[in-house]
């Protein structure tokens, strides 16, 4: 029993490290700054950035709320670690719970608290604005993401991520619920603080919640953000892209975790690509987009999915 728990813990840590590192490499690969110099050295750049941050001075802003300022990166890291527990990277690696999908969605909430605390704790105007913007992100993504995942839950008749992946053994959900995947990715962008929905940490407020962070604390935050993006993409791959199953036509000629990683990185690349080519939304525009466009489309998707489940019984 203890061996299984330890094995699961180390595997989860491995996935988190690989996923976060891969996201950092992908960010640099897609970045316009790397145009013309894309080489194998990009694989080592996240390590160099981490080493630089570890060497950097760890300063406190003047008159911070010390407890909130110091604990915010730890809350962020703890949130992504706890959320990673239920994301299945293979049939034998997940901590299977009956409500894994719901658990994952809910665990994105404390990350908002971490960002809000970071902004508030700096005791600065930009930090305050970032804190309030982070809270608006929670309002934007929670309902939209909840409705976006209902279709696969209905199709698999379970909230367990493992059951949802197993239900896609012969046909991925994206084939007959393409709108659902689009809704999920749009909602995921609200939750992962990436362009075009990155106002709490945007450069237009000098980094916002992360403006006063440096050194190890900033490294923790950046790692948490990278892992958060990876986990959200991995959950999307598990929910809509068949998880660890290979394409039905091709078959499982790669190991299950490799398929899962490839699909996750593909979604990460897609999200980053969309972010590069979309202007930043203001937080009011984001809320308007979430509640007036994404949510009604999610209702339509829910109705269509329900009808298809009743009629086709896939």
């Amino acid at each position: 029993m203890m061996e299984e728990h330890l094995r699961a813990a180390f595997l989860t840590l491995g996935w988190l490290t690989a996923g976060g590192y891969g996201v950092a490499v992908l960010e640099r690969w897609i970045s316009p700054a790397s145009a013309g110099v894309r080489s194998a050295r990009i694989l080592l750049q996240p390590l160099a950035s981490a080493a630089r941050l570890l060497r950097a001075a760890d300063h406190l802003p003047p008159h911070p709320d010390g407890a909130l300022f110091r604990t915010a990166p730890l809350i962020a890291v703890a949130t992504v670690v706890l959320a990673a527990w239920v994301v299945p990277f293979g049939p034998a690696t997940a901590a299977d719970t009956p409500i894994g999908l719901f658990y994952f969605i809910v665990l994105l909430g404390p990350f908002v608290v971490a960002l809000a605390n970071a902004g508030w704790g700096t005791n600065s105007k930009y930090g305050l604005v970032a804190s309030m913007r982070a809270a608006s992100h929670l309002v934007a993504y929670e309902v939209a993401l909840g409705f976006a995942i209902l279709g696969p839950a209905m199709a698999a008749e379970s909230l367990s991520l493992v059951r949802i992946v197993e239900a896609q053994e012969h046909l991925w959900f994206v084939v007959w619920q393409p709108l659902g995947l689009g809704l999920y990715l749009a909602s995921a962008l609200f939750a992962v603080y990436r362009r075009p929905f990155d106002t709490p940490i945007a450069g237009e407020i000098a980094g916002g919640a992360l403006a006063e962070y440096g050194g190890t604390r900033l490294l923790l935050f950046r790692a948490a953000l990278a892992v958060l993006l990876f986990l959200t993409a991995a959950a999307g791959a598990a929910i809509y892209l068949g998880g660890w199953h290979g394409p039905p036509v091709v078959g499982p000629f790669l190991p299950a975790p490799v398929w899962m990683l490839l699909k996750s990185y593909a979604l990460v690349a897609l999200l980053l690509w969309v972010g590069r080519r979309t202007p930043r939304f203001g937080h009011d525009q984001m809320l308007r987009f979430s509640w007036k466009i994404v949510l009604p489309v999610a209702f339509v998707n829910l109705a269509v999915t329900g009808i298809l489940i009743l009629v086709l019984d896939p």
Partner: protein
Amino acid sequence: MLIEWALFLALSAVALTGAAMMLLTMSMYRAGLFLMVSFLALAGMFFLLQADLIAVIQIMMNVGGMLIMILFMVMMMIDPGGEMMWDMKRQMKLPGPGAFSMSMPRGEPPTAGEQESEAEQQHSPASAEAGYTCPMHPEVRSDEPGACPKCGMDLVPVRDPAAASGSAEPPQAGDQDAVRGYTCPMHPEVRSDAPGSCPICGMQLVPVPREDTGNAPAEAEGEYTCPMHPEVVADKPGSCPKCGMDLVPASPAAGAEPPDAAADADGEKADVYTCPMHPEIRSDRPGPCPKCGMDLVPAHDSAPTPVGTQEAGGAVEYTCPMHPEVRSDEPGSCPKCAMDLVPATSESPTVAAEEDAPAMHGGHQMSPAAHHQMMVGMAMSTEQLPWAIGIGVLSGGSLAALVAWTPWRTVPRGPVGDATAAVGELLLSRYMMAFEGAAMLILAGIAAGVILGRREGRPPRAGSDSADGAVVHSHEGEVAMQHANDQQTPGASGVWTCPMHLEVRSDGPGKCPKCGMDLVPAESLGDQGGSSGR
């Protein structure tokens, strides 16, 4: 089993501590976080009960709900971070935790004898025999020169900091002929006609000598001086040889006599600049407001225009109903709240002239006993703590009784595959019924606290005898200050004021236009009322 017990006790401690800290902190942001933490600990207990779905729902509802509550609190409250309360506590030199939390004033309020000795010490003429103090920490007192135990700075004679600069005849604090105002050693842009504390950092204001005794800041163009040591003058930027601070340009241009705060060469009143948002800020030169950074604007005169008066020639003055210190010669919008300005009438509470109103910052004008009472009254959580403890004990006892004696079945042990069935069984279980019963009791306790608090907040009937220094307050936290044998009458001066904003004056009871607190007789705050600015 041992691990489960350890987790249960740890989660219980976190839940109780979070709830207690929510009551004790004055930072609304932290209060919301503490409540969130308390509920998350409760969610952990649900995990221990293997009610995963309810635990996750608990996390979702409380993280989201508390975050939105924090958002609204920050938007709508005057002091969401508790900074104002902390600053007040610092001004009154109360011990306790630092920023963003409020602790009760310790011990008993000062006795009459202690108050008198403190008043004498405050108003006694400055002399080296009165002791030495630190410019940064006025609470540090010593009979002999030395170093401040807190920051290591050299101690200076009490109320005579110019003596530290070696001046042969430093201007006395009360010697208005030799002094052309007071300024802060750290913030030279702060100017005041009277002694007090710097509104930015709380340091004691030092007199600025009228004549150039060689210690005044250099006024020639191109000269630089040290904000802490005005006797240091250099012709180029650099560091102060005494303290290492960067030298700053000495203000006014060469040969130009800086505008006198009191009077110019002809003896007429010179321009005084004030901040539209903070009328207590007065300066004899334009510049940014030290509190909010807004540009200072010329004041109409050195004192706010009294209520009801009109300008020469019959022009009507306009004011804001919410901010009576805002005055304008023409209609428009209030710069603070954008309300339409209305003609000033005799019924509006006035903002008394600065020299008449007791200075809020510095706290020298409010008696220590009044300070103590105000702090006790504002710490409403402690007053309600016995009720909270009583309700908690009653709820816990009821919970234990329900668990022990109810006939309903308990939650089945072991994981349940069907989440829906598990929720149903849990809701109808003995523990949940007990929990819901305890929640009902807590609600009843809150309602009782509200009703009893309202009853306490009513002023006593005429002739009733109240304990000396007794403070009562309603559940909304409004404080009704009472002295022994003092009744809710305005007293001889007929002036009512706000405990938080002493510059607000009114002829009768009402609400403070700045913060909404009930006005109290000025005498109850140790203020003789003085001129109401009329």
